[in-house]
């Protein structure tokens, strides 16, 4: 509750994404409704007011002019701007390819030569505006989301840890699938938050939360190659869920 007796206002917007975060937020609306007023949530309500809000959650990457317009408007009307989901934080799957094809090539390949569609290279929000909090995940973890919101309601920055998935994996006491099953697990270079979901299901982490802090990509590449994975598959796999090109380009094998 604010000093004037009103509830803090939040907004939830989606740019170019799969609506995953919108869905997570929608499904947890019951928990947060007593503490906030939802000023804008086009996915869930008809009357949407983009005017000054305390916290704006934005899903999706910026992939077209319209996204930029909306994003700038949201930024100028919100105190805290939270990028939610891998798309908004790292650019997710759609940004991974832009390194290989130009947007126009993609438009042509999908919609034909004389398509009127204009596309931009998919980029995370931070490429266009200042982002206060970045909460990655594909989709975001609901507990992390609730903690971020609760922190911001106190005007505190939340503590989001970007340690590797391996820590959570060991904390859950999983047998390591990289060691025991020779699976191409990206846990060592991927940010935790999911609770080491894939390895808990005997599968290899494919990096959906984006890179952990300071990922050791050279060592990861080396070890996967030793396990028999070919270099091109390994590099493609590392880049799938939005490891930024700047980080990837530090790879020895790429240089």
């Amino acid at each position: 509750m604010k000093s004037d007796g009103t509830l803090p206002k939040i907004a939830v917007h989606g740019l170019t994404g799969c609506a995953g975060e919108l869905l997570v937020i929608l499904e947890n609306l019951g928990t947060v409704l007593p503490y906030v007023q939802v000023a804008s949530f086009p996915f869930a309500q008809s009357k949407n007011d983009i005017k000054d809000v305390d916290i704006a959650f934005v899903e999706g990457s910026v992939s077209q002019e319209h996204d930029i317009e909306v994003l700038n408007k949201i930024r100028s009307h919100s105190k805290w701007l939270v990028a939610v989901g891998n798309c908004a934080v790292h650019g997710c799957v759609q940004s991974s390819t832009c390194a290989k094809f130009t947007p126009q090539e993609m438009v042509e390949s999908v919609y034909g030569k004389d398509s009127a569609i204009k596309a931009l290279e998919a980029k995370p929000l931070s490429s266009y505006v200042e982002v206060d909090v970045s909460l990655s995940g594909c989709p975001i973890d609901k507990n992390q989301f609730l903690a971020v919101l609760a922190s911001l309601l106190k005007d505190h920055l939340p503590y989001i840890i970007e340690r590797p998935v391996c820590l959570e994996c060991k904390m859950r006491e999983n047998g390591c699938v990289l060691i025991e099953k020779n699976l191409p697990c990206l846990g060592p270079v991927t940010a935790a938050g999911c609770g080491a979901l894939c390895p808990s299901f005997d599968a290899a982490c494919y990096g959906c939360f984006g890179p952990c802090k300071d990922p050791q990509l050279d060592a990861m590449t080396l070890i996967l190659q030793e396990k028999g994975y070919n270099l091109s598959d390994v590099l493609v796999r590392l880049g799938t869920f939005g490891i930024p090109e700047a980080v990837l380009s530090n790879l020895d094998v790429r240089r």
Partner: protein
Amino acid sequence: MQTTGKVYAPVKVSDLSYSFKAVETHSDIAFEALRTILPPKKFFFPQEETIVMCDGDQISEVVEVPTPFVVFGVHPCDLAGLLALDKIFLSAPLDSHYQRRRRAAVIVGLSCLPDKHCFCRSMGTDTPNKGYDLFLTDLGEEFYVQIKSQAGLEVIQACSTFVQSVNNDDNDSYKDFWSERDKLFERTFDSSKLPNLMDMGWNDPVWDQLAERCLSCGNCTPVCPTCYCFDMVDVAMFNTQKMEAKRDRVWDSCQFSGFAAVAGGENFRPGPIDRLKFWYRHKLHGFDDAIEIPSCVGCGRCTVSCPAGIDDLPGVVLTLLQKTNMKDAVQ
């Protein structure tokens, strides 16, 4: 044992791995388990625990009084590991969260036969002499039981029908077991040389070779019986039940890049090599003079859990011993 409380023992969880889990019957227990993924430290210093709660105007301690429980099948190295943790958490100021759980536990030790990764003998942690309530030596048909405490005695009394007093034969087979076991260690070295070794080998190229492969994944630390580093994580909450926030203690690892970073951008261990060397030194050099016990108990967990295969502690030690001309320490 179940009269004492819940029983935890090694259980098979994957093709190659075991884990201490709650068991109901004798048949749940994997007696063959050599090392569990996580050591028994998780019962006393859990992966995640809430330490402090805070509402609008009060801060309070979270007091969890555990009911008595039994940890069954703790091998000598893990007993030594717990003693090392005791030195940290039970030294002043005493960590009450740890202490409460430690008090509630009855520890039943169990003998084991080493594999190629075990080197507890070199670290001097292969003989159980304290840290347990009961210790069982597997003599094939029967167990040779050593009782160390009142709590242990009470467990034995509760199942007196299965217990006989020890005779001379038993004593002999007990001795035989341990001397036979001693022969099984594949790699041994003289651990008294370790502090010197780490100092002399500090700039050895072996570190560069290892660090090139290090993933900084931190797998080596949660599995270690003596690693105790943690982070304090504040989680804000909605004001339900007037609870505004909690402080959680969560396992951390010195292998993560921000571990030693301070405000102003200085990071005292920025690269994997710095962190890896720090870790090796910490394990092999011990807690320096602060606490006079080794901080590696030779369980081999880090060796088997490192995806990069670079935590072969005895291997690295032997290599360094050769290089630094301390060959005489290789036994």
